[in-house]
């Protein structure tokens, strides 16, 4: 497997007590890797550590062999790792177009203009709703604009934290369809998702997390076919997987 992002022995905490307890995970270049697991498993925390929003207590994150853990969020962004957070992250009173421009803020003016035109052709919503206030869009539409904004810097890895959260089934399908299309176009995505089935269906590889560690990792299709995964996602104990494996 051609690994672009490698996580080894990652420990991290917020106030007291480790949330991550030795996470090991590989992200395949040009693929979608989906991390699933129950609430509190540490899925979102992994993304926060990778994107530099949270400093790890121990362990390494390497991008193409270069260690990036412990660096600032801005430095990691410069390395081409962008984070689409779980909560709504658009600037609500700014237009859709300006929100997308903000994604390429660090680019030169000419590069920014060129890039936003490319993004608008990939994401029709950006051009069609360009003048509308981002806050007036539906949740699903906002998520699409967030993804479009994240693509402005031609990222090497996109970290997506529960993009389907709070969306109705129709909007959820649109968002997952977009992620699949991004992946078809060559983007590498590390996806964290509560909606295990939808997430694994668009992923090449998957991982199951529980209590701060990866309990199971493999081809997404195999995980989908594993009855224990559904049980785990619905709140079953991961221990049964360990016992079997």
């Amino acid at each position, binding site marked *: 497997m051609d690994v672009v992002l490698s996580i080894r022995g990652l420990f991290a905490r917020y106030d007291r007590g480790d949330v991550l307890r030795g996470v090991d995970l590989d992200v395949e270049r040009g693929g979608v890797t989906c991390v699933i697991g129950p609430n509190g498993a540490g899925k979102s925390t992994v993304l926060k550590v990778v994107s530099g*929003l949270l400093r790890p207590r121990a362990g390494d994150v390497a991008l193409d062999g270069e260690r990036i853990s412990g660096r600032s969020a801005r430095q990691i*962004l410069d390395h081409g790792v962008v984070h689409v957070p779980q909560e709504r992250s658009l*600037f609500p009173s*700014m237009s859709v177009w*300006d929100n997308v421009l*903000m994604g390429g803020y660090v680019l030169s003016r000419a590069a920014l203009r060129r890039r936003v035109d*490319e993004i608008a052709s990939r994401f029709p919503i950006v051009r069609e709703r360009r003048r509308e206030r981002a806050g007036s869009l539906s949740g699903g539409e906002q998520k699409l604009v967030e993804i479009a904004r994240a693509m402005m810097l031609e990222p090497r890895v996109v970290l997506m934290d529960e993009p389907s959260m709070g969306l109705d089934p129709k909007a959820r399908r649109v968002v997952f*369809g977009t992620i699949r299309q991004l992946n078809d*176009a060559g983007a590498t995505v590390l996806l964290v998702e509560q909606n295990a089935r939808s997430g694994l269906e668009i992923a090449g590889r998957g991982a199951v997390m529980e209590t701060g560690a990866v309990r199971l990792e493999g081809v997404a299709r195999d995980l989908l076919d594993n009855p224990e995964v559904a049980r785990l996602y619905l709140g079953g104990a991961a221990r049964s997987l360990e016992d079997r494996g």
Partner: protein
Amino acid sequence: MRTVSRSGAALTVVIVTALAAFPFVFKANWVVNIAVFTMMYAGLATAWNLLGGYSGYISLCNAAFFGIGAYTIANLFPTSGGPPGSTPFLILPLVGLGAAILSIPIGWVAFRTRGVTFAIVTISLLFVAQTLAFLMRSFTRGSQGMGIGVPRFSVATYERPFYLALLAIFVFAVSVCWYVRRAKLGLTLFAIRDDEDRARGLGVDTEIAKLVTFATSLGITAMIGGVWAYYITYIYPQFAVDPLITIGMVLMVFLGGKGTLWGPLLGALLLVPAQRLLAQNATTARWYLILYSGVFLFVILLLPRGIIPSVQDLVARLRSKSDRDTSSPAATVPTVPTEVVP
């Protein structure tokens, strides 16, 4: 980053031409006197809007820099120096530049805070400046007041040069706002208004953007203060550094529309003539404060975003309704990306 619409350019030409023609069409001194104060507040409100409207930082110290501009002109052109002619107008850019430079260390400290705290810090600065204006007698002559050389302009058109100078500063302020809205700085300010931390997360240097905007806004304010001092020819601390000037400019921005290009002008056009007409009668001179209170309540309760954004929203809703009426149901389905290009 944004294109200029033909209608926007035409609107700008119409507004500026109408404003420039005003004192040549309406020549009565009392009318142009009202126009002078209207243009003064239009400029002050536009300058305030640059920071307060675009970035959401409610700065209440602007009147302090209005006073600094006024006292600078008073010191440069004292009564004893004779009639200064047009020289005070020509020196205004330097006055603005000096005030802008002076504002940088003040802003650097004030921007350690945000939100309500920033507003409290800046209004404290205003009262410090007013107290200093009373105490620094060598610069202000304290409560005794300070005279400026009276220009020998024609009595029939005495107000016109002041009006045109204020119009020039107003056009400059609008041009700065227009440019900022189309530059990265505008993106930065609007992003700061929505969520400053998120903007920083996207690689935006918010500190520099805030300082540059603060300094520009206060530099323009000081220039207007200079024209005001020259116009009224005798200034006192309580009027040169007056919290009511700050309140006036803020109210006009809120009424016309925060963060819009023409909202401050609209607010000034609606409020200042009413204020000046009340001021011409000794009995009603301070009634404008009641007017201000009423307008504040009106804006808070009925027009929280101001006139221009509310009208824009209404037009957008009507257009959207008209589009829905004429389009098929399929056209209203949320947009779905149809293609991803590698």
